[in-house]
């Protein structure tokens, strides 16, 4: 082990910022992070073992105890549930002879849930040793079982298992006309950098992650910071359940995304860029590295880019399973090799970002759009969309519709048009912007896709009339409790309280005051939490409670109060010890 770790740390230039790279490699090699490895890495990187422990216990893909040689994770997103995740997981448990959350006795295989893997248009999905498995069904599970039991190395598995399709269905302004490699940089240097930033300003482009901060303003602020170094970061940690557009953009439009980053670097004066790629997109890693190499060859990255005396390069950093790292300051912490805990602001990343340097963090789609704008000019973009939302938005549409996939629409398009296009009928409602967004009912389909009405990072999940809204809300609420980073009290404790309180109601144990208590708790979590995760974690409950209060009320018992403490449940141990299960060994909590 000593030589392996030594070699690994050396390859990472003894940089503590590369801790996640290093731990990913150790996890892949040993299927866990051995204690000795922690000690050795701590010595070699000159950091404390507790920092390493913290990182291991923070990210879902790192483990202190061994996982199977084949580690199988099943995507637990609501979209996978709609496609039969529960039956599939049960079949996997049966075939592989291992329970969810456990490692098989022979150590060969382990099975567990994982948060949305971004294959919502081709689920139920999963990961095997980090690589994406799509459209899982019984036949594929049989095949996988055989491959595992024969101990076939992953390289020998049929490619069909790993087939990931783009499902690009509707292209508009951006996706119908990708720019040739280098075109944006040439245009920018020909036009002048200041003038190009001005075009970006005219375009009205706003950040595509969902928050919608004006891109030109962010770049301008960052460029004005006096510092020897500036940093460009592309946020490809799309963890919002139901979102997969960045997967497609990086699979088929990566040149343009990298070009947008390089353009940003030219405008703000950066020499270093990072693509923070979510761990679930490991399958894109080699391809993206190859494109970066190609761009270096073509003089579009590296030294003296487009002969304009401009140097810039991009490094890809893989995440390790943490939704919170989509939050820009948590992402920066993660890039620095730490737990992904959102920072206190101010200062903002544009002044103090990666290693304290002025940093621009933007969404994949934002960089894609910026590159097109540099070629076509600001008005080309601004002529489309609404007053406050210029241009187009790329949506990841999934759930109950005939054609899930990627759809690009001008801002201002109404929801009904989108539903018609994707073949959704008999619709109950749509989750816009993922769990952290808004649930709209079928009475609201005239509402518009726009920052001034329905803002979204791109997630668009359709539910038909057969679906139970409380199942959806329950899945989302559990998701937030699982993904809360735990930094602040209202989110750390509040999301778990929300989960328990909602479970109580959904499971039929709620009494008269419980919905009121739920709503009160929602308001505290929303108002008092440190970052966007906590501030939006109650949205699934709040937006459905507002629209379907009767659904919640119908779950309640007809008694005024049921204690949170389960008296009869607490007697279980006593019954087991006394080997009794007669009526006298049970106590009713409240007379019903």
């Amino acid at each position: 082990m000593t030589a392996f770790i030594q070699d690994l740390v050396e390859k990472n230039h003894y940089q503590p910022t590369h801790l996640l790279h290093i731990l990913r490699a150790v996890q892949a090699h040993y299927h866990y992070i051995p204690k000795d490895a922690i000690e050795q890495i701590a010595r070699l990187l000159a950091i404390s073992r507790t920092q390493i422990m913290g990182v291991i216990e923070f990210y879902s893909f790192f483990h202190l105890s061994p996982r199977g040689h084949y580690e199988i994770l099943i995507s637990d997103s609501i979209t996978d549930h709609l496609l039969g995740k529960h039956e599939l997981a049960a079949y996997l448990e049966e075939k592989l002879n291992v329970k969810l959350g456990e490692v098989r006795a022979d150590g060969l295989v382990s099975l567990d849930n994982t948060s949305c893997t971004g294959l919502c248009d081709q689920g139920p999905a999963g990961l095997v040793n980090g690589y994406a498995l799509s459209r899982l069904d019984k036949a594929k599970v049989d095949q996988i079982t055989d491959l595992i039991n024969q101990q076939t190395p992953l390289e020998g598995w049929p490619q069909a298992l790993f087939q990931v399709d783009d499902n690009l269905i509707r292209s508009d302004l951006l996706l119908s006309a990708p720019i040739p490699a280098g075109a944006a940089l040439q245009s920018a240097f020909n036009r002048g950098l200041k003038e190009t930033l001005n075009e970006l300003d005219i375009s009205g482009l706003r950040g595509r992650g969902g928050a919608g901060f004006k891109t030109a303003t962010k770049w301008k602020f960052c460029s004005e910071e006096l510092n020897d170094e500036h940093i460009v970061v592309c946020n490809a940690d799309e963890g919002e359940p139901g979102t997969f557009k960045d997967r497609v953009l990086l699979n088929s439009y990566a040149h343009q995304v990298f070009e947008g980053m390089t353009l940003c670097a030219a405008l703000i004066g950066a020499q270093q860029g990072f693509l923070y790629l979510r761990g679930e997109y490991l399958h894109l890693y080699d391809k993206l590295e190859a494109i970066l190499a190609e761009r270096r060859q073509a003089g579009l990255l590296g030294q003296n880019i487009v002969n304009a005396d401009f140097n810039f390069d991009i490094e890809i950093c893989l995440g390790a399973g943490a939704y919170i790292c989509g939050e820009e300051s948590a992402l920066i912490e993660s890039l620095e090799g730490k737990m992904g805990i959102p920072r206190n602001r101010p200062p903002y990343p544009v002044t103090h970002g990666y290693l304290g340097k002025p940093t621009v963090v933007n969404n994949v789609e934002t960089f894609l759009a910026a590159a097109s704008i540099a070629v076509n000019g600001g008005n080309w973009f601004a002529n489309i969309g609404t007053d406050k939302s210029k241009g187009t938005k790329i949506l990841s549409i999934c759930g109950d519709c005939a054609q899930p996939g990627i759809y690009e629409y001008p801002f201002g398009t109404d929801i009904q048009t989108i539903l018609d296009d994707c073949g959704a009928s008999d619709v109950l409602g749509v989750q816009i912007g993922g769990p952290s967004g808004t649930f709209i009912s079928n009475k609201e389909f005239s509402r518009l896709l726009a920052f001034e009405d329905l803002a979204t990072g791109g997630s668009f999940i359709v539910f038909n009339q057969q679906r139970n809204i409380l199942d959806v809300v329950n899945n989302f609420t559990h998701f937030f409790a699982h993904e809360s980073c735990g930094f602040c009290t209202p989110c750390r404790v509040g999301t778990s309280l929300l989960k328990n309180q909602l479970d109580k109601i959904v499971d039929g144990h709620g009494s008269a005051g419980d919905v009121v208590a739920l709503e009160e708790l929602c308001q505290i979590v929303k108002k008092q939490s440190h970052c966007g995760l906590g501030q939006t974690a109650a949205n699934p409950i709040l937006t459905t409670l507002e629209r379907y209060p009767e659904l919640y009320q119908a779950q309640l018992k007809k008694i005024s109060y049921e204690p949170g403490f389960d008296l009869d449940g607490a007697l279980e141990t006593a019954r087991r010890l006394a080997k009794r299960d007669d009526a006298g060994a049970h106590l009713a909590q409240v007379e019903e």
Partner: protein
Amino acid sequence: MSKTITIDGQVIPFEEGQTIMEAATEAGVYIPHLCHHPEYTPHGSCKLCNVNVNGRTCSACTFPAMEGQQILNDAKDINEERKKITQMLFVEGNHFCPSCEKTGNCQLQAVAYHLNMLDDHFPLFYPHRELDASHAEVLIDHNRCIFCTLCVRASQQKDGKDVFAISGRGINKHLIINAESGLLKDSELEATDQAAHVCPTGAILIKRTGYQVPIGERIYDHTQIDQVSLNSENIQHDN
């Protein structure tokens, strides 16, 4: 003329670079807090010091004071939500005040009294947490840890060591010890370290010093936490 902010209608001067908490404390205005301590870098995690700044919720311990801020602090609805946050801290761990050595000297308990907290309100989690009694002089009862990170910061910033850290995620987060065994006895901690004395609750206790001051004669038995806090923090500031 110096710059000012307004807290609950009171005009308060501040110096550039001060946080709202620092300006308020100097002016004798108490903002409830647990993870904040004037001698250490602010952390902003307990969220008890959340105030309303021009309509926005901000943590007073980390948010900079800026000219003209209109701040609401000692308001009924804000204190009501602070009480709920305190209740969250209580139900998350295992806090049994009557059997805790820290009772009467405990800031968590004192803040709860200050906010008129009379019950837990939320269902208790009853987590399974360990007790580390391995060290000759210092004891850690993880049941009472509220993750304020004061021991983490004190060890790093005052003791020049790195004995404590927070690990894990969400509701599973926990305090860990920098030792290969993970036990306090194998760490660099000494009973004289600041980190061993900074805990606002009874999670870190010095052995063989318990109950030297009888219950009923302890700090918060006689004085509310707002007065204790303002006095001690301003003394520290003057020094």
